[in-house]
């Protein structure tokens, strides 16, 4: 699926990659850039890429149908260019102010609550960002981290346990 297009509501498939970010907010676009780099790989696998600006409750339906979900996002807390991959579990205690945007753990919990299932494997890949102001294009440190992030996801798609570290 082309980055920038919206998520398919009935997304099926073994692996669902949810790339989250705002392409007009500097390094917040890194997930979309990673998604672009994965297009070729995804075309010949059972993976599907969804690019969005935020995680919304309606994505729980697509998530519930996937065997594995990979959330990709920029991190404002991590050092610029730092790639991190961590397992995510459903969070049964979500903040009261939850609205139309959710975090990955809440999406998994919603998937369980609404559809009685969630992916057997869920991970969050983040890349530390440096600049998040209104702008297009990644900072050099974040841009240089894209190949590593892509490689880590390729490892996951190849079911390489070492990809999570």
């Amino acid at each position, binding site marked *: 699926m082309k980055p*920038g*297009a*919206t998520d398919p*509501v009935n997304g099926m498939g073994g692996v669902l990659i949810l790339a989250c970010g705002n392409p007009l907010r500097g390094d917040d676009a890194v997930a979309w850039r990673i998604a672009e780099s994965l297009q070729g790989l995804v075309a010949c696998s059972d993976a599907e890429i969804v690019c969005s*600006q935020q995680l919304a*409750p*309606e994505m*729980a*339906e697509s998530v519930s149908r996937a065997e594995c979900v990979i959330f990709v996002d920029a991190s404002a807390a991590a050092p610029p260019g730092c790639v991190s991959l961590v397992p995510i579990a459903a969070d*049964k*205690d*979500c*903040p*009261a*102010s*939850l*609205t*139309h945007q*959710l975090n990955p753990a*809440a999406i998994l*919990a*919603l998937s369980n*609550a*609404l*559809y*009685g299932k969630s992916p057997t494997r869920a991970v969050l890949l983040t890349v530390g960002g440096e600049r998040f102001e209104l702008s297009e294009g990644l900072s050099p440190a974040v841009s240089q981290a894209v190949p590593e992030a892509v490689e880590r996801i390729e490892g996951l798609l190849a079911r390489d346990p070492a990809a999570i570290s």
Partner: protein
Amino acid sequence: MGKKIVIDPVTRLEGHAKITLQTDDRGEVQAAYFHVTQLRGFEKFCEGRPFYEMPNIMARICGICPVSHLIASAKACDAILAVRIPPVAAKLRRILNLAQLIQSHALSFFYLSSPDLLLGMDADPAERNILGVARANPEMGRGGVRLRQFGQHIIELLGGKRIHPGWVVPGGVNEPLASDKRDAILAMIPEALATTEKTLVWFKSSLGKFTEEISTFANFPSLFLGLIGPDDTAEYYDGKLRFTDARGEIVADGLSPARYADYIEEAVEPFTFMKFPYYKPMGYPEGHYRVGPLARLNIAQRCGTPLADQEWVEFRALQRGAVLSSFHYHYARLIEILHAIEYIHVLLDDPEILNKQVRASAAMNTDEGVGVAEAPRGTLLHHYKVDENGLMTWANLIIATGHNNSAMNRGILQVAKRFVRSEKLTDGMLNRVEAVIRAFDPCLSCSTHAIGQMPLVIRLVAPDGALLDEARRD
């Protein structure tokens, strides 16, 4: 000693707000202020840009209701072109606007308000959210998700993407509807109708649990404003403006949207960036009015589709004259979803909907244009002026949430007087103060044209300005 309570930020809203409750020496709330603390300035930075860029630029005001801005802006540009757009283009824009209403109302009802309605205003805050709804009533949660997807999917099929579609252009739309897309939408209608009807049955059966909220959630006489069709039906895309009063009587009718400045003026208050529009002949603040789902069903004599008309009759029987409690915005929202689904069906059943003549061509023919449409939250108005080269020299936007500003402030005071009774704020108190605002489903991003965050702060302050208590939700 009197106190001031401040709620900052307010949660489950589109935007960022703060509430201050001022108490008197007896500890009773005597004043309430709803502060909208953002400003972005779309009206200013569009100056110097070509007018035909406005639909896409103005749509960026909001990620929830961009279609509404797209349509109002395109209509203002149609006026500058001085063209009458092809009939099928108007129908296609109408479908897009109704789809926007469905997805936005579904978000408001199921995601933002159903936690209060299903679990109760005093429920554990940790559970009182969409996840709590999913646990307590998964069928309702799934229905809400599917209904929102239904609206979004129509927008995506017509406009190419769900958020910020660029399909609506000055003069019409830029692509006709293909038959496979029409059929795809038609195939989704039975499920959407069934979900909405089922939710209406549940909601009506729940009203008995909210008698106190119904009586105190911005329940007072006011004027109501909205677009109206030629046969007194609720109108969402075109038509004239109508003001009615609390008795349901027409105050002003057949008003040309282009002459809005003759009857709407905006007041400013020092505690907020959001302006206070009012009905000019009655002055400020007496001329305050409400817009949106409640207002649209109050000013109309029918919806214009069979199922929604049955519901409208039942709805209007709630009260003699106009339905005054803003709690019933929720009820009206569900009826409007039903009507929108039925109306989309009617429009798609017309063979002309596939007509390929969807855009009128013209150059700039006048230097001023006004575009008005009904957004999910109420009447939306875009007014542009351009120079001889078609470059923007001035813009004025009156946003649905802004029209409701006076009513929201009065509603907060009413509910705070009823529920806030001590020096220490309880969650139930705070939630009801928030919930009265949520009933209006305000979009603060739109009303200030500012980037939205959704936190809330309530502060309790003494008459001398001393902060006595504060509650915050991020």
